[in-house]
């Protein structure tokens, strides 16, 4: 067994690292309650006087809420449609034998290594030519397309574990493929649906490059573009910027604590399998 001393050093080391993670977050949060003067003269300490006006100011901004709403719309549309398209495709790859099954599956998987940045110029032109600029679809459709490979990989791995005997039995009872998918596969696969949903939603919520290319209208800015916009507006008043960032951190951390299981399952499961 490890000696007490080495255990002590281990905890010391881990706590030190935890500090490197937490101190920036802590400072950001604490600074959002400071006045601008306090912010520059008293960097590390607690606020000399706790002020909440930064928060009421940010909450009072109309576009603050519209950025949040837009991100929600982008996220929900992307997630729902990714779940539908990817689960159906993965079902076919996992359970139906046909000529070309493996080929089409590999075709979709090569998308995993396509660098998104390489596609931005043609994507922009395509979306413009489709007349989708200025709509939510300009961001949603490319997001779905680029997330499909990973989602299908995760779904297929899960669906494969459903025993084929189940399908044979259902088939004898007059159940066809699509019935089987809706009545048996989906109810059995709630965990993987949750995992893919969480990972897709978080990816969409955090996405920056795609909306940066597609969205020029401030009314359709998602959250990350909103933060950058806000930073530009308040570059001289960082207590406001830090308030905005804190308001981003809090829901993100709460969501992380609640959905951690799914996030980690999705990211490591997809990575380690196959």
């Amino acid at each position, binding site marked *: 067994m490890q000696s007490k001393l080495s255990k002590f050093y281990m905890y010391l080391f881990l706590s030190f690292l935890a500090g490197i993670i937490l101190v920036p977050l802590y400072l950001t949060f604490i600074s959002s309650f400071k006045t601008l003067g306090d912010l520059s003269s008293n960097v590390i300490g607690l606020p000399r006087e706790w002020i909440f006006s930064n928060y009421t100011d940010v909450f009072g901004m109309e576009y603050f809420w519209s950025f949040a709403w837009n991100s929600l719309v982008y996220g929900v549309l992307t997630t729902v449609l990714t779940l539908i398209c990817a689960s159906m495709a993965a079902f076919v790859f996992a359970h139906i034998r046909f000529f070309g099954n493996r080929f089409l599956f590999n075709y979709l998987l090569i998308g995993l290594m*396509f660098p998104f*940045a*390489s*596609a931005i*110029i043609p994507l922009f032109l395509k979306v413009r030519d489709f007349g989708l600029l200025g709509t939510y679809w300009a961001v949603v459709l490319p997001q779905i397309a680029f997330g499909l490979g990973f989602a299908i990989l995760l779904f297929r791995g899960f669906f494969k574990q459903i025993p084929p005997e189940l399908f044979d039995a259902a088939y004898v009872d007059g159940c066809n493929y699509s019935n089987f998918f809706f009545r048996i596969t989906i109810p059995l696969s709630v965990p993987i649906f949750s995992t893919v949903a969480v990972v897709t939603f978080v990816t969409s919520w955090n996405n920056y490059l795609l909306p940066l290319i597609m969205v020029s209208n401030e009314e359709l800015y998602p959250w*990350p573009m909103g933060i950058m916009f806000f930073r530009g507006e308040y570059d001289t008043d*960082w207590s406001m910027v830090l308030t905005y960032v804190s308001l981003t951190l809090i829901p*993100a951390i709460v969501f992380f604590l609640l959905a951690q299981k799914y996030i980690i399952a999705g990211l490591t499961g997809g990575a380690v399998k196959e």
Partner: protein
Amino acid sequence: MIKKNITSAFVEKYSTIIIFLVPALTLFTVFVVMPIFEAAYFSFYRWNGMGAPEKYVGFKNYAFLFKNGIFLNALKNNFWIIFVSLFIQLPFALFLALFLANNFRGAAVFRSLFFLPYILAEIVASLIWVYIYKGDYGLVGAIWGLFGADAPWITADKEWALTAILIVVVWKYFGIHMMIMISGLQGISKEVIEAAKIDGAGPVTTALRIKIPILWPTITLSIFLSTLGSLQLFDLIMPLTMGGPSNVTHSMVTYLYDFGVGRMRLGFGSAISVVIFIICFVVALIYQTTILKDKGYN
């Protein structure tokens, strides 16, 4: 009667295949595969996106790109990002994973904590560090202040700006690799570890001789993922430096955004896209072939 059943089963099967696959295949082909070929086509033109591309320039866009000092510097920066990711971040993640894969008291809390930066949006993580690095009211400024020195403005300093970015890269991404490796380590059967213990192997020998070799496929995956990620780094750089000061901290993608998209030089931008694509493709190919080779040995 039976024949009719067989036919209808056949029809049902293939109509299911088609209906279930068409949405995914269409979206993927239109928005992922076609753009790469279109970029390759546009890259031979000088074009601002209006009308059809007409001014054919051959390989001039590429020639210009590889003579351009800012782009070559961006390539070099991407190389440094890969280097730090592979030789500092990953060994560090592995070292932590070897500790934290064990379920001692508090291990779960530390795991979650170290993973936390990964789930923050890049923009947010980066802005937090912009604040930390600030010379006037950031932490760095305060620490320098303690020594009575004038604080350097790290992100605006040519010497330090890239280092500032690299620190944030490690801070943000070591957690995901640690998690991937922990889930690999927890998959190693207990018997193997026990057997090593009985043979008298200490924790270090077990890690070096047994855990790391068994974990190797997972490690190569981490190498692959962080190389691809490093090649595409964009979001983290934008709030920190936007490629500045004087264009010294561009990555290939921020260069593409600034000089291709931002200035509506779409032909030139497409040439940059193609170069990024080819580099990523080669990396993926190397990964595929080494993995296949490894599987061949087993």
